[in-house]
């Protein structure tokens, strides 16, 4: 068989028509990625949309997995940022979480992963426990240095260590992001059909044969990707694929979000502030700021949550005293959106010829910021295992297992945030602290306390580091130093850690201010024009 014949044989087995349902960020990201990766092998990719592209993860920014994605050919960081009012995110600052007036930071981490025999965390913890170190763990990352210095992760003409590691993320407007992916997908030949899905016709194997739209049009397909958001237009109408709770309870059930005009100073980091009734986020974009709060319907009213958010916004100088003093006036002037959150996941993310991606597949607590990350993870895994027309049960099982592990691990990480809070001054925080933990999280914590080892499945350095920074920031330390760290030559770790700080300080000098770099990007000036 020659190569042409071989390609034809492969193409003969591939789905002829893939139907993506939804107008969300996940839907258009799926269309764009599928076209870029397998567009030539699939005869037709159709996106069925019920409206204009829309934001799917309002209280969230991205994670480094997204940064790695847009570094691929056919995509582009600056174009993406221009499309969605994007700014860089180097870290997240948590205020009043451990206790009032105490901050900790979760920077993205690009290394070093080890110092001699010890991991970076083991090295720091060993020095700390022996009273030889005062600096917090986060202060050894260049991302934190850039965050407090207000610097961009990259220079105008020169890349930086942060660039190279791709350990940074973005604050984005989700609607703009969905639009950007849509433009890419349509340019690659993806078909868009506008219409509400009225009927989902089963294929008798637990999957779907075709969709009937409200106007009567029939859309048949070999494969269906449900990206319509929670609860999923397609998956929720197929039998036997229930929405089930995550392994850990999340105390937040209500999200209130709004937009504020941006100021001149654009912070390259997210701020999370613990409030009495929950927590608030502040994510600066180029021309607006996304702010909002998470709270529990069980412990406070909607008005109470809005009022508390208003106090915070007043303190930061974002709103007037008049606005802060009246919930009605605040509603009128800032038009906050209220969303009820239903954390959970599908029993099966992929069933027969239907796969659910995005919030149709799972809804996690926004504190871990994982919505877009999980969409991307699902899509990349799906592309890795790309099915033929007779989808294989083993492949589906492998997909479901891997996605479940990732979702459950993020559920553990979210639960750990609440478990480690030291507030206990309100019903919300007491309930958050008292929530039962999953057995995997209990085991992880026991192992960590005894050995400094973190048993997490993610191979991504930023993913492991999120656990390190959270534990250290909330002052949850293992009982003693790791043997690998104590075995290091005396003075070596001190020297190595000191060198890291000095090296970062030097490198930070070369980076432009965040606002300066953003002005350049959003003005649309190409690097060629600038150097000329």
């Amino acid at each position, binding site marked *: 068989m020659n190569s042409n014949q071989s390609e034809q044989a492969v193409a003969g087995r591939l789905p002829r028509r893939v139907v993506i349902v939804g107008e969300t960020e996940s839907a258009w990201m799926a269309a764009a990625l599928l076209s870029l990766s397998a567009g030539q092998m699939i005869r037709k990719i159709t996106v069925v949309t019920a409206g204009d592209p829309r934001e799917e993860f309002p209280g969230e920014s991205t994670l480094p997995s997204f940064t790695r994605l847009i570094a691929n050919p056919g995509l582009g960081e600056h174009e993406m940022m221009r499309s969605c009012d994007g700014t860089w995110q180097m870290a997240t600052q948590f205020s009043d979480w451990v206790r009032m007036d105490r901050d900790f930071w979760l920077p993205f981490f690009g290394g070093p992963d080890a110092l001699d025999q010890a991991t970076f965390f083991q090295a720091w913890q060993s020095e700390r426990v022996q*009273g030889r170190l005062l600096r917090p763990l986060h202060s050894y990352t260049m991302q934190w240095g850039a965050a407090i210095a207000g610097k961009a992760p990259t220079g105008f003409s020169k890349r930086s260590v942060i660039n190279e590691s791709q350990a940074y993320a973005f604050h984005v407007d989700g609607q703009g992001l969905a639009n950007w992916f849509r433009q890419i997908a349509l340019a690659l030949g993806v078909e868009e059909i506008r219409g509400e899905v009225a009927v989902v016709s089963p294929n008798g194997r637990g999957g779907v044969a075709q969709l009937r739209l409200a106007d009567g049009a029939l859309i048949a397909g070999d494969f269906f990707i449900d990206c319509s958001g929670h609860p999923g237009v397609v998956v929720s109408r197929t039998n036997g694929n229930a929405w089930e709770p995550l392994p850990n309870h999340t105390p937040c059930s209500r999200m209130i979000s709004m937009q504020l005009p941006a100021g001149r100073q654009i912070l390259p980091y997210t701020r999370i502030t613990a409030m009495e009734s929950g927590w608030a986020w502040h994510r600066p974009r180029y021309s607006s700021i996304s702010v909002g709060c998470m709270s529990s319907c069980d412990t406070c009213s909607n008005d109470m949550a809005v009022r508390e958010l208003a106090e915070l916004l007043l303190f930061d100088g974002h709103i007037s005293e008049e606005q802060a003093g009246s919930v009605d006036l605040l509603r009128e002037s800032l038009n906050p959106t209220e969303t009820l959150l239903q954390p959970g996941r599908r029993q099966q993310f992929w069933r027969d010829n239907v796969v659910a991606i995005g919030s149709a597949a799972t809804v996690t607590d926004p504190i871990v910021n994982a919505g877009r990350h999980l969409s991307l993870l699902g899509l990349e895994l799906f592309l890795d295992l790309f099915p033929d027309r007779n989808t294989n049960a083993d492949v589906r099982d492998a997909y479901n297992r891997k996605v479940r592990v990732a979702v459950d691990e993020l559920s553990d990480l979210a639960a750990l945030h609440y478990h480690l809070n030291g507030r206990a001054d309100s019903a919300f925080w007491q309930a958050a602290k008292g929530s039962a933990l999953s057995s995997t999280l209990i085991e992880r914590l026991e192992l960590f306390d005894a050995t400094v080892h973190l048993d997490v499945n993610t191979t991504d350095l930023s993913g492991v580091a999120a656990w390190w920074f959270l534990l250290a920031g909330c002052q949850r330390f293992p009982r003693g130093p790791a043997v690998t760290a104590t075995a290091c030559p005396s003075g070596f770790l001190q020297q190595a850690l000191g060198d890291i700080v000095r090296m970062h300080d030097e490198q930070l000098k070369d980076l432009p201010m965040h606002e300066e770099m953003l002005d350049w990007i959003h003005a649309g000036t190409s690097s060629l024009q600038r150097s000329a």
Partner: protein
Amino acid sequence: MPHVIAVCGSMGSGKTTVVRHLSQLLPQCAVLFEDDFNRTPERSLEEIQAWFDRGADVSEFDLSAFGHAIDRCLRNNDCGNDDTPGGFLLLESQFGRTHPLLRSRIDLQCWIDVPLDVAIVRKLEQISSGLQQDRMVRASDGLSWIADFCHAWLTSTRQLVERQRKDVRQCSDIRINGMREPHDVVRQILDELPMRQLINT
């Protein structure tokens, strides 16, 4: 190497008092005051306003002499020795980590928080008390001095202090209520130290 602790706060926050108390409790402790090296107060109101209008970049303030003094302390190990993990260098600073020269040198930064009205009244109280004790100053000159201070506050100092409260506070590790008694503030800082058990207070 000694551990570097910066105590920051707006004028009138009581940082000098806290630094003095703290220096008596920390073993092998040296102290440096940024004001001894910072020439900002000598700038005219117009200069300050122009700096603010340019974007308020703190690196425009030359703290190189302060940086050299810190490095000298660390290099000479004035505060202790390598075998004793107990040496400290205390900095009283207005800029803290917001200044690029100090960013990598500070290990722990404490922000002493007081409301703006308290800060201004404390400062006026301090100025008045200083003027009263200075027999060479005539009453009319003293009042004129206070009037100048008030004018400066309304035209430039206030926005400077607000910016400082926002930026320096943001990059501090702990924020402490400066309305509390100095010994409570000091106790809170000591409680933050991981080598707390090694400090005999």
